[in-house]
């Protein structure tokens, strides 16, 4: 009899154990941050993470609260108390059946409200863990303001003239929409096409790489990311913008964006065409992402080195279109994203280069004028697929492919004078080239979590291939007292393939520390075949010029492995470790049938330390050591004579250089007083650098040969700081930014060591004030100071001062009209080598009128460069050369434009 009871009792216990292991108890207490007072009757709500449905709610009693019998799920906990900032916490209930949240501190709203310059009772900023959230409704925005306009007003964020965003000191590399990529390779397409009134909130956080997010270790390699979350009613519907503009002198601009969202299904398309240099030009050229490039990568070893970008030089004409499709399937287990883009760019113009070349016994001054007419057409396709195979493993597949067709036409005239002013050399040449390039990458990444937290394994395979076939005609006439003529046909054929296999294993050592081991195998094969044929005048026969032709191959095999130790708590992050690699470096000169085998043993040490004073104040230090191996065009033993006065020659004996680099960073955002500050300093030393040996003869002909400089180091250093705060008097915002860049570079000129020291300093002050509905104005003033000294010509020190000021003003008038005006005044003083000052005033303004209730339609009259003073201007110093470059650029025009915004959202279900 008693046995039956015991058995029943046991069974009952077992059942209740099983039952209770599925239900949780959550306890915690709530206190005021500064006064440490317990908060009574605070509202605590538990909400499902997935759909925000309220699961349960309770009130605190004497500061303490409790939830019982909570079903296993992912929740958000929201604590609120009148006059305090809401507190949010994500809870993923996993193992422990009792979750003790400890004491939660709420911040007094009065502190936050005083700092945010808005009217009304909504608080614009929320801090949730490591994410900062901004509420668009709390900012002064025009009715059809875009997300870019919103970001310009948000504390801690800066948007420059091109739309590039910097948040809390770091450049934003990605802008996501609802957590997903949206035209990933051009974040300005999101910020310029989405309207701020469609946005629920904007989140800023550091997005970890796929591998880092998976393994759970903070490897410090984050990318500053902005996530735009759309309002619920804007998740389903379509919206877009069409802009048409026409100006005098043949200027025109047209763009259209169309987006159709239906919850997880997003389709977007854009098309543009303009000759004003505004949309879709320079940003697309830059490869910005380290998580597997989103735009195809090409080699730059063509007959002409132009990289297909506008860069502000010349008059551009650009047309492009693109489309994006993304969707989620299988309850979010499969996420797919595809996009295609096409761009046709034509740039035509002229530029003028003045150059001072420092030699041991003299210096030479040269002038050259170049007229160019270049065209670049590119196609790019991206696809990525992320599959959650099960709760512990993910597969990520990325494909990227592209094609470029490029042609360039250049007409040069150059003259070299000696220090007295005699012309010792003159050259005129015509250079026309064609290039056809292909590139493709495939990335496969498999990530698996093993049975313990932070015990993971990941395997990645990356395949890359690019080929380029380019050809050109060089017709050149040089006069040094004696004339010489060149009529050459050039062909470059270059291929590059890389196979990269990497696997990482991580193992948790203690609650805060992890060890990771990695193994990498890389095979990198490249081939550069250069051929030059001389064509005699009045003859169809072309003969191979052997001094200028060579077929070279380079094969590198890396076997690399390493260990890294990570320690991370809420306050401290520390990392130290190193990789070790054995490299087989095989050089093969196919023209001469000779081989050269080298072996390198490389070390890649790194260490990092970061300290979080609080959620919004961090200090970090980083050290990195790495080798740089010589590249195929530096090794190839062939003369490159595309500039017959400046020949370039490779050297097969090059060895690697080694760099040590350190950087320090500090960033803080004091929310209570709305003060933002950041500072950073970095320094790197390159030992045994791959530099050039220059020999210039008395006729001004220079030959540059690559070589390692032994027993000599190149140095680069830079520092910057930034401070932004509102001034106490009448809500004026104040910013101050300073930066310093410098380097000490060495090369050998006519057998003497040339040591070049360069320092640039810049300090800028800014003031701004806005009154909602009336005006928005600001002004910045900057001072620039440059010095340059070269050991070969110590008397020719270059020192110059420059100033730049940029006032801007927006006036909001009745009848929905806006006037905008901005001025950019730049002054650069003369130096020892350049005896003219440079100054220009750029004045741009427009007047705009909006129509309809939502300002859907706008008409705008723009005047660009009213004083017709725009001139391209650049001064830079490299090795033993000081160069000043002035070039054609777009000048004064006026333009009449019409912008129509449309949006239609389906009612929410």
């Amino acid at each position: 009899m008693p046995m039956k009871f015991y058995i029943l009792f046991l069974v009952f216990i077992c059942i209740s154990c099983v039952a209770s292991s599925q239900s949780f108890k959550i306890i915690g207490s709530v206190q005021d941050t500064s006064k440490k007072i317990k908060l009574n009757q605070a509202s605590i709500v538990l909400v499902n993470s997935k759909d925000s449905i309220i699961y349960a709610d309770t009130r605190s009693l004497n500061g303490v609260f409790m939830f019982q019998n909570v079903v296993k799920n992912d929740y958000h906990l929201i604590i609120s108390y009148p006059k305090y900032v809401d507190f949010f916490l994500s809870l993923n209930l996993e193992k422990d059946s009792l979750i003790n949240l400890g004491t939660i501190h709420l911040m007094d709203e009065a502190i936050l409200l005083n700092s945010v310059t808005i009217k009304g009772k909504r608080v614009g900023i929320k801090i949730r863990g490591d994410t900062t959230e901004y509420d668009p409704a709390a900012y002064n925005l025009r009715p059809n303001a875009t997300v870019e306009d919103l970001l310009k007003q948000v504390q801690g964020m800066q948007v420059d003239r091109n739309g590039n965003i910097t948040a809390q000191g770091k450049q934003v590399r990605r802008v996501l929409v609802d957590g997903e990529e949206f035209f990933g390779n051009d974040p300005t397409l999101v910020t310029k096409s989405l309207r701020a009134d469609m946005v629920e909130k904007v989140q800023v956080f550091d997005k970890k790489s796929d591998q880092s997010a998976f393994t759970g270790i903070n490897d410090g390699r984050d990318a500053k990311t902005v996530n735009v979350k759309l309002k619920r009613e804007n998740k389903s519907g379509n919206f877009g913008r069409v802009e048409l503009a026409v100006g005098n002198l043949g200027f025109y601009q047209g763009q259209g964006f169309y987006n159709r969202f239906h919850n997880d299904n997003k389709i977007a398309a854009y098309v543009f065409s303009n000759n004003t240099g505004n949309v879709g030009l320079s940003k697309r050229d830059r490869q910005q992402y380290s998580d597997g490039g989103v735009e195809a990568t090409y080699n730059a070893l063509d007959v002409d080195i132009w990289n297909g970008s506008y860069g502000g030089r010349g008059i551009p004409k650009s047309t492009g279109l693109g489309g994006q499709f993304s969707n989620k399937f299988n309850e979010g287990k499969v996420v797919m994203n595809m996009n295609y883009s096409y761009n046709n760019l034509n740039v035509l113009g002229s530029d003028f280069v003045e150059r001072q070349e420092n030699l041991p016994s003299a210096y030479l001054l040269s002038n050259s004028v170049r007229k160019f007419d270049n065209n670049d057409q590119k196609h790019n396709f991206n696809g990525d697929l992320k599959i959650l195979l099960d709760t512990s493993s993910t597969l990520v597949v990325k494909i990227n492919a592209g094609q470029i067709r490029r042609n360039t036409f250049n007409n040069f005239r150059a003259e070299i004078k000696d220090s007295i002013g005699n012309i010792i050399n003159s050259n005129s040449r015509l250079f026309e080239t064609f290039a056809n390039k292909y590139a493709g990458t495939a990335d496969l990444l498999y990530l698996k979590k093993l049975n313990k937290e932070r015990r993971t394994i990941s395997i990645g395979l990356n395949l890359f291939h690019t080929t380029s076939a380019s050809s050109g005609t060089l017709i050149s006439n040089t006069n040094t007292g004696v004339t010489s003529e060149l009529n050459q046909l050039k062909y470059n054929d270059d291929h590059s393939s890389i196979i990269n296999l990497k696997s990482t294993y991580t193992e948790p050592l203690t609650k805060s520390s992890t060890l990771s081991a990695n193994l990498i195998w890389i095979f990198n094969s490249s081939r550069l075949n250069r051929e030059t044929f001389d064509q005699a005048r009045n003859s169809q026969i072309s003969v191979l010029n052997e001094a200028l032709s060579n077929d070279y191959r380079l094969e590198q095999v890396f076997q690399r492995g390493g260990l890294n130790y990570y320690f991370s708590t809420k306050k401290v992050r520390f990392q130290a470790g190193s990789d070790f690699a054995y490299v087989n470096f095989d050089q093969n000169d196919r023209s001469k049938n000779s081989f050269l085998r080298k072996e390198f043993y490389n070390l890649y040490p790194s260490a990092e330390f970061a300290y979080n004073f609080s959620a919004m104040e961090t200090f970090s230090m980083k050290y990195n050591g790495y080798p740089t191996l010589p590249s195929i065009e530096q090794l190839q033993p062939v003369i490159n004579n595309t500039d017959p006065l400046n020949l370039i020659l490779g050297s097969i004996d090059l060895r690697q250089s080694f760099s040590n680099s350190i950087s320090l960073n500090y960033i803080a955002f004091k929310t209570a007083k709305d003060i933002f500050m950041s500072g950073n300093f970095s320094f790197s030393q390159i030992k045994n650098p791959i530099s050039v040996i220059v020999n210039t003869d008395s006729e001004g002909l220079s030959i540059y040969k690559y070589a390692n400089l032994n027993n000599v180091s190149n140095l680069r250093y830079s520092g910057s700081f930034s401070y932004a705060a509102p001034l106490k008097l009448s809500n004026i915002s104040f910013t101050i930014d300073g930066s310093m860049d410098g380097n000490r570079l060495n090369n050998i000129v006519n057998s003497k060591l040339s040591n070049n020291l360069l320092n640039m300093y810049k300090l800028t002050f800014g003031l701004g004030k806005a009154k909602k509905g009336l005006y928005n104005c600001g002004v910045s003033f900057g001072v620039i100071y440059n010095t340059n000294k070269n050991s070969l010509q110590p008397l020719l020190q270059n020192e110059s001062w420059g100033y730049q000021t940029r006032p801007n003003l927006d006036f909001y008038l009745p009848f929905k009209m806006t006037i905008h005006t901005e001025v950019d005044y730049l002054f650069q003083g003369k130096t020892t080598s350049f005896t003219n000052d440079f100054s220009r005033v750029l004045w741009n303004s427009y007047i705009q009128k909006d129509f309809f209730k939502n300002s859907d339609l706008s008409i705008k009259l723009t005047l660009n460069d009213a004083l017709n003073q725009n001139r391209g201007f650049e001064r830079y110093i490299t090795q033993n050369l000081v160069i000043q470059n002035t070039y054609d650029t777009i000048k004064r025009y006026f333009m009449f434009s019409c912008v129509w915004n449309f949006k239609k959202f389906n009612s929410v279900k």
Partner: protein
Amino acid sequence: MSLLEKKIYTVLALLLIFIFPINSSGQNQSFIESGSIEFERSENVFFYLDSYYGTLEGDMKKYADEYKNNNPKFKLTSFILDFDTNESIFLPKSNSELKIDFLSQFSSENKVLVDFKRQTYSAQKNIFGIKYRFNEPIKKINWKLTGETREIAGFLCRRANGLIADSIYVVAFYTDQITPKGGPESFMGLPGMILGVALPNEHITWFAKRYTPGRDRQLLIRNKLEGKAITTSELDEVFKNERNRRTLNLLNFIKRRTLF
């Protein structure tokens, strides 16, 4: 005790004196547990007339046009919600001021009595001219909390969206400064008092206009719930019988009004 021990104890004692009071005092914001809230209900009557009476001919059409000519588009009615942590009563502010029109027979002047402890409520509704009395457990609504906030009657309210009877979309604003989990009509269950309700598809809203402390004890006594006791399934029967007299469109409209 040695001198050192004495010193340690003194320091400890002093520390305790200073720490304890800080630890044990709680902060009590002025949370509201009882009082009276005046609500204003707004109905877009022209919309009802156009949707449900517009197609009819004859008398009804005439009535509709005449109504539109003599009345404002939005009909405003005042209600009182008198509550404490145990119970609440919701009823029209003044019977004499109630407008008599075509809506009077479609649960326009509900009286609702809620028992928070037992989680049940009783409602008196006038449907088709007959007073009915319902007695039900408080329905569990799945409220979706949004981040949106709004100020109503001087209180900061949060927005939650929900669905009633699987088809009626509700937007409600509640404040956690008033602790009982009640609201106008039969809308309740949010982590605080509901001060605003909107049914976008029904073109009807209730918003609190003012809060006054102090309860009127007489209210409950003077307003006992009357009417024929009925359950929801029995009500369905009543609607079935009305089928031949009114259009389906209108009938569904009236039926939806009985749901809140």
